C-alpha cells in the first residue's frame, strides 16, 4: 500500500484547528477521502514552479483605500437580531477556557 498522505492523528489535529467535532467513523472516512484528494493533488509536485510568482489576486489592482469618514453604525437591534443568545446589549457565550 502506498504511503498514506494523511494520518488519523493529523485528521484529529486539523479537526481541532478547524473546530469541527468528528465522530470516530467520520474521522476514518474523512481520512480516506482527504487521502484520495491529496493523492490527486500530488501531481502538482511534478511541475517546476521555481521562479514563478504566486498569484494572490487574479487581476492586478493596488492601493484601494477609503477616506477616513465616519458613517452611521447599524442599530444595535439589527446587529443582535440574529444572535443565538443575546443578553441585553451584548452577545452571550459559554465559558471560555484558555486552551
Amino acid at each position, binding site marked *: 500500500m502506498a504511503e498514506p498522505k494523511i494520518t488519523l492523528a493529523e485528521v484529529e*489535529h486539523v479537526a481541532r484547528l478547524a473546530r469541527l467535532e468528528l465522530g470516530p467513523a467520520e474521522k476514518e472516512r474523512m481520512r480516506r477521502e482527504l487521502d484520495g484528494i491529496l493523492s490527486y493533488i500530488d501531481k502538482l509536485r511534478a511541475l517546476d514552479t521555481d521562479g514563478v510568482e504566486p498569484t494572490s489576486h487574479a487581476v492586478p489592482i493596488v492601493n*484601494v483605500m477609503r477616506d477616513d469618514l465616519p458613517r452611521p453604525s447599524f442599530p444595535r437591534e439589527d446587529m443582535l437580531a440574529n444572535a443565538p443568545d443575546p443578553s*441585553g446589549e451584548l*452577545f*452571550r457565550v459559554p465559558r471560555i477556557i484558555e486552551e
Partner: protein
Amino acid sequence: MSAADRYEAVIGLEVHAQLQTASKMFCGCGTRFGAAPNSQTCPVCQGMPGTLPVINRRAVEFGIRTALALSCTVNADNRFARKHYYYPDMPKNYQISQYEEPLAEHGHLAIEVSGASRQIRIQRLHLEEDVGKLLHEGNLETAQSSHVDFNRSGVPLMEIVSRPDLRSPEEASVYLRALRAILIYLQVCDGNMEEGSLRCDANVSLRLRGNRELGTKVEIKNMNSFRHVQHALEHEVHRQAQTLERGERIVQETRLWDPDRNHTVSMRSKEFAHDYRYFPEPDLPPLQVDPRWVEALRASLPELPAARRRRVMETYGLTVHEADLLTQGRGLADYFEEAARGYPRPKIVANWVLNELLRELPGDDDRAVAACPIPPRSLRGLIGLIDDGTISGKIAKDVFEKMYRSGEDPASIVRREGLTQVADTDELGTVVDRVLAEHGKVVEDWRNGKKQALGFLVGQVMKATQGKASPAVVNALLAEKLPKG
C-alpha cells in the same frame, strides 16, 4: 555575587497603539471610546456573511508617519494577511493583520537611562484591526459565561515590535515612555494605557552575563499602566533568576500580570502553539506606497520629543529632568514655550508650570492642557506682577489658585481683592517697630544668636499686613532696626 548580578535581563516590548482615526480600519464605524455596547458596529466589523474590508487611508498615513519618526524603512510593497484563531471577541475568527510584508521595518528609538544614551532597535511596525471586548463576571477563570461587545472590533491598531535590546525593567519603562511621547506628538494615538489605547506586552528572558545566546523567553501580558510594566518586569526578572538559581529550567509560556497579588500567573499551558495559518488577505489588494507620499509626510513631521527636549533644555537653560517633564506632551511644551517667550528668566516660568500648574491640572496630556483655564499669557502676567513688586511670591500662589478657579486674569484679581503688595518703607517701618516692641523676648533670642527668631518676626509682620508686605523690604527694615548683637 547576587543573582541579579549574575544574570542579564533581555527584554523586548510589543506595543499596540490604537490609532486616533475618525473611523475604523476597514469600515466606516466610529472609534469613540465608551460608547454603549454594540452601538458602534456594522455588518463589516461584526464579520457578517458577505461583508468585505476597505482600508482606511488615514490609518496607513499614521503608520507611515510613526515609521518615519522611528527611523524605520517604509516598505513600499506591503500587504495585509489573515491571522487565524478562534476567540469570541474576533468576529471572523481571523484578524486582518500584516505578516510577511509589514508596513515598516528596521528602525530605532534612542533612550536615556542613568545619563547614558542607548539605541533600541525596532524590528517592525504594522497595521491590523482590533478585536472586541469580553466582559466576564468575576474573572476569566471562574466565569460561567462571558459577554461580547464588538464596538472595539475593527478599530485600527498599530503594532510596534522592538528587538530584545532592553536590559532592565527600567529601560523598558523609559522606552515605553519615549515611544508613547512620540505617538502623542504625532497625534496618532492618545497614549492612554488605562483606557487601553496603548497596550504593552513583553518578552523576557535571562542569560548569564557575558553570554551571547538568548535564554528561554516568557511572554508577559496584562500590564495596563506604566507602573504595572515596571513591577511586572521586575517581578518576572526576579522569578526567572530564582528559578535558574534553583537549577530549574524556564518554561516557555505566557504569563499574566496580576496587579492585585503582585505576581505573574501562568496561563494554562497550551496544548499546541498557535498555528495562525497566515496567508495574504485576498479581499485587499496590496499596497504600493508612493515615495512622494512618504516624503510629503516626512516633511510634515512635527518636532519630535527628543529634539524638542534638547532644544527646550538649551534654549531655556533647564535641566534634563525639567525639560523631559515639560516635553512629555506637545500641549504642555507649547504652553510652556508660549508662556516663556521673550522672558529673561524662563526657569521661573518652568517652575510655575511644573509645580503650580501640574498640581492643578487633572493630567499632563494634550486634552487636559487644552482645557486649562489659565492661558499662557495670564501666567506670564502673574509672573510679571511679582517681578514689578505688585505682589509677593506667596500672594501670587493664592492668586494663581483663584485664576484657575475663575479664569480671570491676575491683575483683575489683585485689584479686586486688594492684594497689592505693601512696599512703602514708612508704612512697613511702623509695623516693624510695633512687632519688635510686642515681641521683646524674641528680639532678645535673636540677639543671643537664635536665627529662627528672625523668621518668626518676619512672619508676624506678614500676619499684621495680611501677607501683603514685601518680603524684601521687611527683611531690609528688620536688618536695619534689630539691635546689632
